[in-house]
């Protein structure tokens, strides 16, 4: 049995059926940022929290009110304690992060570019990356003492692995045709690395910085809780031991602000280095 296409086209489904619009089906799956909603939600949560505290629904001992937290934070500022703790934490955070990042970038580039480093490097990273780095703090204390070096080592060690993984992942993701192009124009190896591989890997490396900076903050606080006189982690632990929950939450707020500052700085770095995107 054969059909003539003109017959098929000429045959209407039903001459009497009314015309209708084509239904639009491409809705959703396209979330958009709304800064007003973000701030509104934030304010609403704090307002509800304050309302709960003021009406006694939330126990002041278990969870101090936002006003009490603000007062405790103000006290930390005017007495200068905040700067003492924050300064110590920032030194450890920046120092540990830089050490881990420099080492991670170096190893990541070696693993990403050279066959001799690839297999041992990947095996090494795969074996050590899953270890919770805080578990190694006692070992670092044995090796480096209870002072600053063990804290730097813990943070650097935690930062090192995600940096290695993102760096060699970034190098792997550089389009091979760009490297071939460089080679076809006889660019020296160092130029291929500096002008093609490094900028090509940069987006992945920078997104790795966001992960490694978060890990660095977590490890910083954990290390300071185990053995430090000053630092936001030490402040939070001391406040908890004394049931000073307002100061404890103030410390947590400082950590949140620290995280936001780091994220903002990385965002600026991203926009500066990846302006071409």
């Amino acid at each position, binding site marked *: 049995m054969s059909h003539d296409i003109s017959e098929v086209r000429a045959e209407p489904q039903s001459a009497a059926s009314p015309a209708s619009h084509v239904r639009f089906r491409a809705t959703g799956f396209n979330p958009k940022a709304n800064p007003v909603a973000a701030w509104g939600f934030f304010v609403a949560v704090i307002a509800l929290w304050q309302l709960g505290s003021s009406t006694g629904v939330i126990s002041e001992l278990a969870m101090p009110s936002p006003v009490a937290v603000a007062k405790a934070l103000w006290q930390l500022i005017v007495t200068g304690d905040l700067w003492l703790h924050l300064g110590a934490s920032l030194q450890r955070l920046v120092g540990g992060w830089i050490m881990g990042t420099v080492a991670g970038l170096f190893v990541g580039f070696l693993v990403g570019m050279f066959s001799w480093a690839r297999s041992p490097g990947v095996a090494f990273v795969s074996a050590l990356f899953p270890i919770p780095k805080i578990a190694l703090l006692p070992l670092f204390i044995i090796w480096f003492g209870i002072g600053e070096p063990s804290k730097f080592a813990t943070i650097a060690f935690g930062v090192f692995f995600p940096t290695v993984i993102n760096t060699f992942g970034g190098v792997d993701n550089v389009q091979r045709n*760009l490297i071939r192009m460089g080679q076809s*124009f006889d*660019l*020296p190896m160092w130029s291929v690395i500096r002008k093609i591989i490094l900028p090509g890997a940069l987006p992945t490396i920078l997104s790795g910085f966001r992960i490694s900076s978060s890990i660095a903050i977590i490890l910083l606080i954990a290390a300071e809780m185990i053995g430090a006189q000053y630092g936001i982690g030490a402040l939070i632990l001391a406040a908890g031991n004394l049931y000073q929950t307002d100061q404890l939450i103030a410390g947590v707020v400082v950590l949140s602000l620290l995280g936001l500052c780091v994220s903002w700085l990385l965002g600026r770095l991203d926009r500066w280095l*990846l302006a071409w*995107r």
Partner: protein
Amino acid sequence: MRLQIKGICHSYDQVEALRDIDFGIEPGEVVALIGPSGCGKSTLLSIIGGLLAPTRGEILICDKATPDGCLNPLTYVFQDFALLPWRTVAGNISLVLEDHGLSKADRDARVAEVLEQTNLWDFRDAYPKQLSGGMKQRVGIARALAVRPAVLLMDEPLSALDAQTRILLLDEFAALFARTGMTAVYVTHNLNEAVRLANRVVALRRRPGTIKEIHTIDIPIAERREGMPELIAHESALWNLIRDEAIAADKELENVA
């Protein structure tokens, strides 16, 4: 520069891609490589350009004469443009001049010269993402011309472009070859491009690629026009040459699928 391709064989693991390829490329001639999909055209070009080591055979540079100021005798033009997205048009061209000891003024002069030649001057500060496919390939050509190559190696430079842009760029390539008398090896699956641009067309058989015939087109490139009866005759002759190979290659692909 005169090149001699001598006994080139190449295999990817167990797959034999090319077998016993022998031909010469004379100074000032454009040689097109045609053949069915997978016959090893691009592989052969990579071997000629020194980007792939052949399993056997050699590429000999018999006459080392190069144009004045030549920085990279064998220069590639890529099918997918291979432009650095983080550099501007001028930056992409400048990249290939930066490691040759040229002063910044010399580099800038060369960049300006090729930007003018390729009508890209107004786009010198644009990034690749801001350009159309045709413009990107013009940047690829400008970059290649900036090093004043002895031999241009072009790997299907028009295949990633739409039909209209392809026609326009094909005219520009023809004008470039006619004007400069540049030596080039041009890989294409498009017979129309081959007959418009090439002095000789090397037709390859399906995998493993071997030379079926070297077809000569003795009409000066400057005199060739789209739709010329002589060119249509050459195109038909080439199609007759590779038709059976193309059908057989297609059937092989069907069997693999």
